[in-house]
């Protein structure tokens, strides 16, 4: 059973990477690919309806890991507490960037959240790579 659950957790992690991966890309590239406010709005519309559901895969992965591999979760979080807290803050900034952007009709406000969304997406993608690379470096 532990082998089966290892495979299922790997599949869930891969599914999160697939679904949230395009959201990373949209965040990183939207400052460069979209030149006007209308184009940036168009880019954000493409991820707006689905980004919540994509991130739930990460939550499901963490919850399932806690149920089946609790020692793994405890050891990984204990050893990587600061990096994982940074990842959580970057996840929050990504969400804030897409949800708060349209709350105030002000150019500076929109630009700030555009940059925050792009920076958080880039830093989050590189952070995940660093963490997984550090965990499994040989």
């Amino acid at each position, binding site marked *: 059973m532990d082998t089966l659950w290892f495979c299922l957790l790997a599949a869930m992690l891969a599914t999160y990477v697939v679904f949230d991966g395009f959201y990373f890309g949209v965040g990183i590239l939207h400052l460069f690919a979209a030149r006007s406010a209308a184009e940036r709005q168009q880019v954000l519309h493409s991820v707006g309806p689905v980004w919540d559901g994509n991130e739930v895969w990460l939550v499901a992965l963490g919850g399932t890991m806690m149920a089946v*591999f609790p020692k793994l979760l405890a050891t990984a979080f204990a050893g990587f507490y600061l990096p994982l807290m940074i990842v959580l803050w970057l996840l929050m900034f990504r969400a804030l960037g897409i949800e708060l952007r349209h709350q105030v009709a002000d150019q500076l406000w929109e630009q700030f959240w555009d940059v925050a969304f792009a920076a958080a997406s880039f830093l989050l993608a590189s952070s995940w790579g660093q963490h997984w690379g550090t965990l499994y470096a040989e």
Partner: protein
Amino acid sequence: MLESLQVRPWTVGFVVLAAGGIYAARRYCLSGSAGKAFLASCLYLYAMMASRASWVFPNVLPGRESSAGLTAAVAATAESTLVQTLYWWVPGMCLALGYTWLVYRALPGKFLVGDGAGH
């Protein structure tokens, strides 16, 4: 990694799948088939994850010394818990996949400038 390859040489197939996924993604992207290019990139990601997972197994958290690493057998909870978790995980995943399919199916193919409000 080399030890895992010696024990499970068939895992090299995942690398071949990943390379095929990259090649197919580029081919479909250049030919304008965006949907097929996306599926090919998904294949690449799944194959990469599968290759790394198969090479790491049975370790789930490798240590600097092999004796200090955490294996799947040691990190797992009780066998009865693993079985019971599977009983709620399967319908949960069916719901999650069904919801994902519905949401993506409801999305329009392309978003135009000026579409919608909110996000």
